[in-house]
């Protein structure tokens, strides 16, 4: 296999090198890619959508349809991880471990008995390791700021790098951080599985729904200028607002998907303590 791999790799590589000779020189301002289509976006983005970040206007408006499917890809990945890994309705384990929070004593109960939820006891798994107070506290302090930053990234995507996707990942990462620093159960208490699973399609549906709204208002799918009549603004601002709406949808979808995938992978679908 190694030799075959090597041969294939070398042939492919040689072919690509051969082809690259005919490329325009690197960073050539006169290459077709820089002169044919991109000037339109750069020159008209502000006029068309009043969004200074060309990437955002291009992402969410000119090629907004791609982005909708990009979000759908993410949703799909979350769903696939769920359907592949989640062990739903599985048997409760015979033995359960509990830890008395104050004293650190571990209690093991057999034959499916359990302790009713209380402040004193927390449920732990076989793989439990003692938490580090510094990490726990540090993370807890950081998480609100991370989330705040994420919201900023989503909201300010119009005029600075960032947008729904990056913000969504960061939001998701904040919850994942909680799950890592504490345990998965703690994170799940904040974000129930059902909430995640419903918010995820809702996020993408906000995107697709915005598009459909434009369609219902009489223009083409995702033509945000149709929103002008609803939002009582001029078509150009309507485009800007439309972009914000879909960015929010993307943010929700991406955040929940990241959490969803993490939940399923880190607990192998069992939704126990996790990492």
């Amino acid at each position, binding site marked *: 296999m190694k030799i075959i791999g090597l041969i294939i790799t070398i042939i492919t590589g040689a*072919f*690509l090198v*051969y*082809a*690259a*000779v*005919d*490329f*325009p020189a690197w960073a050539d301002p006169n*290459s*077709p*890619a*820089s*002169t*044919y*289509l*991109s000037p*339109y*976006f750069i020159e008209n983005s502000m006029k068309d959508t009043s969004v200074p970040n060309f990437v955002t206007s291009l992402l969410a*408006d*000119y*090629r*907004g*349809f*791609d982005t909708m*499917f*990009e979000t*759908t*890809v993410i949703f*799909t*990945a979350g*769903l*696939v991880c*769920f*359907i*592949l890994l989640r062990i*739903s*309705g599985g048997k409760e384990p015979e033995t359960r471990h509990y830890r008395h929070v104050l004293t650190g004593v571990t209690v093991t109960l057999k034959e499916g008995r359990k302790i009713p939820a209380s402040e004193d006891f927390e449920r732990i798994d076989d793989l439990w390791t003692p938490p580090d107070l510094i990490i726990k506290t540090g993370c807890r302090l950081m998480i609100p700021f991370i989330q705040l930053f994420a919201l900023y990234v989503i909201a300010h995507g119009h005029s600075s790098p960032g947008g729904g996707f990056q913000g969504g990942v960061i939001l998701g990462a904040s919850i994942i951080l909680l799950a890592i620093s504490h345990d998965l159960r703690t994170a799940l208490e904040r974000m129930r599985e*059902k909430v995640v*699973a*419903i918010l*995820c*399609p*809702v996020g*993408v*549906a906000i995107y*697709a*729904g915005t*598009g*459909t709204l434009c*369609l219902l208002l009489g*223009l*083409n*799918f*995702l*033509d*945000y*200028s149709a929103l002008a009549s609803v939002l009582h603004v001029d078509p150009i601002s309507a485009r800007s607002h439309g972009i914000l709406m879909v960015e929010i949808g993307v943010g929700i979808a991406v955040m929940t998907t990241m959490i969803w995938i993490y939940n399923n992978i880190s607990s192998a679908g069992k939704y126990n303590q996790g990492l």
Partner: protein
Amino acid sequence: MSQQYPVLIVIVPLLSAFAISIAGWVNKRLCFPIIVTALGVAVYASVGLLLTVLEKGVVIYHLGGWPPPVGIAYYVDHLNGLVLVVVSLVALLNVIACKKSIELEFPDKAAPFYTLYILMVTGLLGIVVTGDAFNLYVLLEIAALTGYGLLAMGEERAPLSTLNYLYMGTIGACFYLLGVGYLYIVTGSLNMVDIARLLPPLYQSKAVLAAFIICMVGVWLKMAFFPLHAWLPNAYTHAPSAASSLIAPLVTKVMVYVMIRLILTVFTPEFAFATLALNNVVVWLAVIAIVMGAILALAERNLKKMLTFIIVAEVGYMVGGAWLGNRAGMTGAILHIVNDALMTLCVFLVVGNIVYKVKGYAFEDLQGLFRKMPFTMGAFVVGAMSIIGVPPTCGFFSKWYLILGALQAGHYGFVAALIFSSLVSVVLFFRIFEICYYEPFSDHHGHDHPPEPMDEAPLLMVVPLLIVAVILILVGLYTGDIVNHVIKFAIPEGLV
């Protein structure tokens, strides 16, 4: 509303996917009606679209209101109008036929399964309808990811074979993406029609050549064209029957469509066939694919796996036909997309019914099926006849055009391969018929043994199957109309 058909075909299934996903957490019984309605709308819209195209010519839809090449546009011409109808119809019939087996195999995961199912259909429909090279990549990935999810839900070996598929599929999609990048770097555009307009002065460029070859290799990987077919048989065999009867008919066929679209629209036949001298190589590869597929199928003792090797051979038919570089061959390839999708659906639905009742698909499990499941087996006979290429089932007619194309191109190797694979198919299928018909043997002439009671699959599974079988014959009888009114216009005038 009719001017919105192009986007509705994609959007209605997409929105319904979210609805199903949410309904799965609220009320599971809603899922099936939603998916059937959505696919029904898709079928309606695609038929309406095809009729519009037949009447008025190419339909162009600007997404987001941006005219191409600035925005993304949908181009619906005769070629993808036809494929759209096939894809949506196959998906609709299959989901109805597979309701029972989905509920049996995934009692608590039916809703996510339906969601993935309809997302996959969305992806495939999107691939077919789009006129933007990069948009196609994104949809390709949707179809692929959902496909991995659906396939991996099968037997215990399914995850491994799916992971292999995932590696290959990712390489394929990335190659395609790279090819698009090469096109972008030399033309600066992503819109297919626009690229085709900008390309002619660049036909001598190595980058364009590389883009073409890389795109082709990527697409071949995805459609399991020899010698890149190794992932397909295992991945399809171990999949749940509802998934394999969606994926087996559609994915390879849609990828063949992408190949034809690239050849006809993006690179134009002049470049693909005249500038490059690749025809012969590819057709010979197709010949090997057909022969290999047939022989490997012959070696299998397992119905579903045997059928997967037949798919490999059928891919050879279509690629070979398209690369013959003449009108008849291309007609055959396009017609075979339609026919092969339908006949593969037919045989895989049969496998689904058998699995539902007998819980197995090895040859030993098939004994006495003619008596036990007469309707299912009746449809199987029709499907098999179509794969063999017996008139008036549709398989014969596409084979006719393929052979005609090969004769006109003077490629007798391809003719021989087609005839050979027909003959092997006869052996393949009659071997199965024999098992279903003769076995289990009784001692004396079979006069007295008590006939086994009929134990047919539920009506909901049998009726769609029979519909497919009837469609197979109808498409065969109306081949003349399909070719004269649709496919004739799908092939550019330049190709003779």
